[in-house]
Each structure stands twice: as C-alpha cells, then as structure tokens.
C-alpha cells in the first residue's frame, strides 16, 4: 500500500504532468489561454487576482526552498533551526494568507456574478475545488501544526522523500510516519500536478517574459499559399451573359493551375 501511494502515484502523476503538457501543447494551442473574464467582472478580480497570483508566487518559492534545499545546506551556511523555522513560518503564513484571500475572492466571484457563473466550465470548478483543498491542507500544516502545534520537521522526512523521487529511489518509510495533514498535502500535490496540463493553469508556462526584449511591432509573412484570385464582377457578368443557357455560375470554372494571372476578361 505504502509503495503504491508513495512511489507509484507520484511517478504516474509526474508522467501525466509531462505527457499531458506535451499532448496539449501539440493539439490544443487554441485552448491554451488564461481564459480572461475581466471584461465580464472587474470589481472582485481587481483585488482578488493580484492577491492570488502574488501569493502563489510566494508559496511556490517557499515550497522550492523547503523541498529542494536540503537541511544540511542551510546548516552549513550557519542558519540555525530556529531562524529557519521563523523565516519559513512567517513567509508561509504571509503568502498563504494572500493566497487564501485571493482565492476566496476569485471563488466568490464565480458565485456572485451571474455572467461569470455562465462562463465557468466544469474543469474550472474542479480546478477551484482542488486549489481550495490544497491550500486548506497546506495552511493547516503550516498554521495548526508548525505555528501553534508541536511542529513537524518535514525537512528531514518529506523533503528527503520528495528529492529521492527525482533520484529514482524514493523510500516510502520516510512518509509513513508523517502527520496525516502532511501526507494528504504531499499526495494531493502530486495529483494536482497530474491535473495541471488539463486546466487553464497551462497559462503559467506562457508567462510573457520575452515581451521585455522583443521589438514593439511584430511583422510576419503570410503562412501558406494565397487563395486563388477571384474574378472581378465585370468578368462574371461577361461570362454569364455569353452563356445564357448554362447554369448561372458565380465563379467561372477556372482551375487555379491553368490560371497564370488574375482573370480580367472584359467585353
């Protein structure tokens, strides 16, 4: 069981994350968008969206710090356990509260505005539910256990297991002893990654940083061939007048291949 949950599920999820993105990038460029709804509702979005996004940046940075930086590195730098704990809990709470506030506003917006409710897809609802669940689990880990509770040192267990996944030798025993909240948050995180490529979250990978360097006006040549030139109305009139018995054809049957130039047949 623990092998399935702490080894099989993470790898399947990472596979879906990578494979899903490749598949969607190839097959659904048209659907690859932020799916903006600002023109339909601006009042709640104006506050909620920046709060959510900036909070999310902080939370992602915090996760990177906690999961990817081994405890031995910070020790070697002379950062004491107490200082690290202070930084991580403070940063986690501040950015977490921003994320919660932003997400609450964005979800409320989906309920309050009839216009927004109408454009909310099933996938949006799934995404909002998953985001809410992940944030609740993550915040209870940070606030309930690490701020007010006895604390749990995820850096010696959870983070090690997480890094082992990428070394291809995860040890499930590191996770079996973790508090339930951390277990759920960890496995939920992987399920969230698996869902990612199939939601509007793909817009994260299109963050337009290249805009900072490119020239303002973009010129582009026409892709593909030009369509066949259409005859001028005068030419059509001439042709149909010359053949009154024939079916009235709007376009004279001229094959593009034997048509070297624009047909300008004039009487």
């Amino acid at each position, binding site marked *: 069981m623990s092998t399935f949950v702490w080894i099989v599920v993470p790898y399947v999820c990472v596979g879906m994350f990578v494979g899903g993105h490749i598949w969607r990038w190839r097959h659904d460029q*048209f659907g690859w968008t*932020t799916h903006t709804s600002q*023109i339909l509702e601006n009042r709640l979005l104006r506050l909620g969206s920046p709060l959510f996004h900036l909070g999310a940046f902080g939370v992602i940075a915090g996760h990177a710090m906690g999961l990817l930086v081994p405890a031995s590195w910070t020790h070697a730098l002379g950062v004491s356990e107490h200082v690290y704990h202070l930084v991580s809990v403070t940063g986690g709470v501040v950015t977490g509260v921003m994320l919660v506030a932003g997400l609450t506003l964005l979800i409320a917006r989906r309920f309050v505005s009839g216009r927004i409710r109408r454009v909310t897809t099933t996938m949006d609802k799934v995404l909002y539910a998953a985001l809410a669940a992940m944030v609740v689990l993550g915040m209870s880990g940070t606030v309930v256990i690490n701020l007010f509770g006895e604390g749990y040192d995820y850096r010696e267990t959870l983070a090690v297991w997480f890094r082992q996944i990428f070394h291809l030798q995860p040890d499930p025993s590191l996770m079996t002893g973790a508090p339930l909240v951390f277990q759920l948050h960890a496995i939920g995180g992987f399920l969230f990654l698996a869902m990612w490529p*199939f939601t509007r979250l793909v817009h994260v990978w299109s963050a337009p940083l290249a805009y900072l360097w490119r020239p303002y006006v973009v010129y582009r040549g026409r892709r593909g*061939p*030009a369509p066949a*030139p259409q005859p001028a*109305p005068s030419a059509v009139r001439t042709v149909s007048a010359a053949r009154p018995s024939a079916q009235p054809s709007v376009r004279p049957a001229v094959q593009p291949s034997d048509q070297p130039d*624009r047909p300008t047949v004039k009487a």
Partner: protein
Amino acid sequence: MRIRAQVAMVMNLDKCIGCHTCSVTCKQTWTNREGTEYVWFNNVETKPGIGYPKHYEDQERWKGGWKLDGKGRLVLRSGGRAKRLSRIFANPDLPAIDDYYEPATFDKDILVSAPGGLTDTPVKKPYSKLTGEPMSIEWGANWEDSLGGDTMDQDPNLRGLADKVKFEFEKTFMFHLPRICEHCLNPACVSACPSGAMYKREEDGIVLVDQDRCRGWRMCVSACPYKKVYVNHATGKAEKCTFCFPRIEAGQPTICSETCVGRLRYLGILWYDEDAVLAAATVPDEELLDAQRGVFLDPFDPAVQQAARDAGHPEEWIEAAMASPVWKLISEYRIALPLHPEYRTLPMVWYVPPLSPVLDAAGAAGRDDTDADDIFHTIDDLRIPVAYLASLFTAGDTAVAGGVLMKLAAMRAYMRARTLDGTVARELLDGIGMTADQVEAMYRLLAIAKYDERYVIPAAHAKTAAALEDLGGCSLDGDGGPGMGGGPVPVILSTRRGQ
C-alpha cells in the same frame, strides 16, 4: 528605405447615411458567434457622441495609443513593458462589457405561442446573452443613432466647446462615422501584446491576431485607442477586424465596402517606408498629419517602383498602387484625413470630412448653401463644426480641416457653375490651388466612381495559387473561427460552456 505595401481605406463621410448595412454584413460575416455577441468589427456611430465603446476617445481614462514622454521619446500611454507586465493580473485600463453594452436576445417564440383570446398583444421580452436572465436594454452599439442618445455633450472631442454647442442647439449638427480597425502603421495593440500573437502582415499591412498564440493577456484591448480589439469571452482570446483578408487576397473588397449602400468606401494600396514610421510618429502634434503623409511613397516615382520590384512585389501591385483611389484622396487631392492622428499609431483608414455640418450651419444662419462665398464665410465664421472636425481628424488644426472643407465646397460650386451655367469658375480653382482637370477627376472619384475605380485591389501573388489544392479546406474553419465547420474538430479543453 524599406518599402512595404499597405491595403488602406478612405471613407467619404458626406455620403454616409447611417444605414448600418456595413455593420450588419460585417457582423454576419465575422462576429455572429458565441462570445462575440457584443463585438462589432465595423460600427457606425453618430457624432457628436460618446461612441462605441462609451467614451473610447477619452485616452486620459483608457490610456490607449502612444504619447511623447518628457524627453520627446515615443512611449505607449499605458506605460513601458515592465509596467504592463506588472498589471497583467488585473488590467486597470480594460473596458468592462457594460462600456460596450450587454448583448440581448428576445423570446420571440411568445409571439406565436401565446394563447388566443388575450386582451393584450403578447410582447417579446429581452434576455441577456451573458446570463440568460431577463434584462432591460439600456445601451447598444448605436444607441446614440442620429443624436438619439442625449449624450452629445459628453463627446470628448467637444471639450472646451461643449457650452457653445449646448447654447447653439438650434444650429446643432451631426454626421455618421463608420469605424473599422485602422490597421495602423505603428499599431499600439501589436506593441502591447505580451505574447507576440498580434502582428502586421508583411505583404499587405493587415493587422491580425494569431488565435493559436494569443494567451488572453488582454493588453491589446486597452492599448488600442480606437478600441477595435475585442475579447471573445467564450474562447478567452482577442479578436479584431481582419480587413476581410481572405477577400482582399482574392482581389475582392472587404464585405463592409462591398455592401456599402452609399458607395462611400475606397480601397487601394499605398507604398510606405517602414524605416520612416517611427520618426513620423514622434513629431510634435501639429506636424503629425504631414509627417504621416510623408511616410507614403509616390507610386509614380520610378525609383519607388524600382524599389518595389527589388523587394519582390509583382508588377500588378505596382500598377495597382498607381491606380489607387486611396493615394489620390490622401496625397494628390489631400482631402482625406486620418482619424485622431494624435494617437500616433499612424492609422490607415482615412476620412474625407463631411461638408454637411457646414452646409447645415450655413442654412441655419440664413445663408445660401449653394453659394461658394457664403459657404467659405460659414467655414470661417462658424468655428464649432470646423473645430469639432479638427479635433477628430487633424489633432485640432482648424486651418487644415477648414482647408479640406474649402476644397469640397469649391468643388461643389465649380461643378455647379460648370453644369448649370457652362462656365469655368477660375477664381474657385485658384482659391484651392487645384487645376480644372484635378477638380473634375476628384469630383468623379467622389461622386460617380464605379466599382473598379473605388476598389483597386491586386490579388495576392497568383504564383502560389496552385498550391491551394494542397490546403484541403478553409483556413477559417477552426473551432471558434468564423468558418466553424468542415474538417476534423480540433481538441479543445475548457472553452465550451453549457447553454
């Protein structure tokens, strides 16, 4: 010099009767789809008025177009690149849908399904296309039609003039202004697009949105000072007037031009120097009009023709540029003017300003609106219509706007004398500095030009036409595209909503 071709349009506003046929045929062709109910690539608004979307010309509010910064450099009014990206989560300059209008439909079924024997006639009620709920219709794309909106005093172009207009209401004036995307030489929408999805076509200057690369950052909507880029709220992507490029490529006029009842639209190509665009957009306000005219290259100049040949343009295009009615109206007769040159986007849809407000004013002042002298005096005396037209078309320069009106008035009087009296009014020609041949050619182009004279559109390079057979289907048939059909349906996630 880098020579490029631009497909451009001129509209003769004196001939616009405000019938909205262009808007309707455009909508039927391009935006009769879910998500674009409120979108009019072509709209006709009544001036003075606040327009569509409301107050779109108020750039203090929407921050559209370009401006010169303190050091005289050209910058987008909404700020630099980093500032724009910092506002990507909530664009403060984006119009809301209520600034356009809430699109509605009607339960027309009630008209036939209502039970008989009612004392009242059944009435169809409006329902919102956004929520499906009953609604009251309070605004629309042409709500102010023929000054019906009671909003003319809010027109941003009337700032400083509003009181006089109100007081002289009996002398009020109006005209219709059809608007499409300007397909600018220095497009602010393209410059503001974070994804690089918007582009100006090298072949004909048409500005388009690549639907596969648009990520819905909606900066183009706020950056366009004419508010001619729209968000499709069903697909989450930007859409805009395409200048009917599939028709243009085939040598046909745009659908708005084709169906224009007043025959007031002119289409043709212009040569322009891409390297001169930035400098022309950076001159002081009062030089903008001349600077933009200076970007266009004389199609009769052998050096320009040779440059076009060297750049690979076919002979057919070089001939079409010489026959271009747009070149004649803009650069030869100099009676066409750009809409709001002070936005510094170098728009490519120009307008022959209407003489009718002046004629109306002359009539209201008890003058003879067929007498050239009386009209000239009216143009000189009645500053309101002229100043208003100047704020629309010449960045406030009343001398230039008045000069164009003088030309139009002189042409009328000259042709009147010629036709009725058989005399050549030489003093009129001297007054506007044009020859008799020029005035008569101008008269023909404005009054009686036929289809082939109004629309001189060379087809796209015919060489590539044979390759069409390999295409297999229409390029507009993508999901969400105006073709919507034919071929396999592409995979779309999370873009459809239940009805």
